[in-house]
């Protein structure tokens, strides 16, 4: 299994508070992704990174920011959490070459915003 860990795995917070989710990889992969999974919506891309300090927006980036200061870490921040951001968040990594686009996932972080 790819070495990807997400923290925290579960978090309950209140509306308006900041939240940071961490994704850590030991595979030295260049590409890292944050998705949210909600019933009926599949997985939606929030932000992704194609290298240290290189990030871009995905499909649902409003209300989220990311940072990648090291190859192994990709942080997702909710500056001011809202109830609509209650979701399961998955981090994924991807290499290059013939497996272009194949993703390896973390175990997910379940966030509840009250």
């Amino acid at each position, binding site marked *: 299994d790819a070495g990807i860990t997400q923290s925290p795995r579960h978090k309950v917070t209140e509306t308006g508070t900041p939240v940071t989710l961490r994704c850590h990889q030991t595979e030295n992969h260049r590409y890292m992704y944050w998705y949210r999974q909600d019933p*009926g919506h599949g*997985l939606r*891309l929030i932000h*992704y990174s194609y290298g240290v300090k290189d990030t871009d927006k995905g499909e649902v980036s409003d209300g989220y920011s990311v940072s990648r200061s090291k190859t192994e870490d990709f942080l997702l921040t909710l500056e001011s959490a809202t109830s609509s951001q209650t979701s399961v968040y998955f981090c994924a990594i991807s290499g290059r070459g013939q497996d272009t686009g194949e993703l390896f996932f973390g175990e997910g972080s379940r966030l509840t915003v009250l």
Partner: protein
Amino acid sequence: AQSVTQLDSHVSVSEGTPVLLRCNYSSSYSPSLFWYVQHPNKGLQLLLKYTSAATLVKGINGFEAEFKKSETSFHLTKPSAHMSDAAEYFCVVSDRWRDDKIIFGKGTRLHILP
């Protein structure tokens, strides 16, 4: 931008009968296409992938998919359903020559009837 449409949100088949899960994609260039499966309360697992080699792709657990460029489709099939196939299936498109986004469809939940 690339996109994926899974034509059925739910599919029900009887055990031992064929499975067909439909996926259409939109991509400006030459896409890579994937099917992932997620069993209840589990993580995502890669079933199979198309990355511009053979158009008929075989995956794990007897699944296969055919890339049809003229129809922009990548349907997933299995000759004979098993109870253990009950899960949610996601079609995924990557267009690495355009950008590094990896986009999921909304998912198809497969129900297996005894």
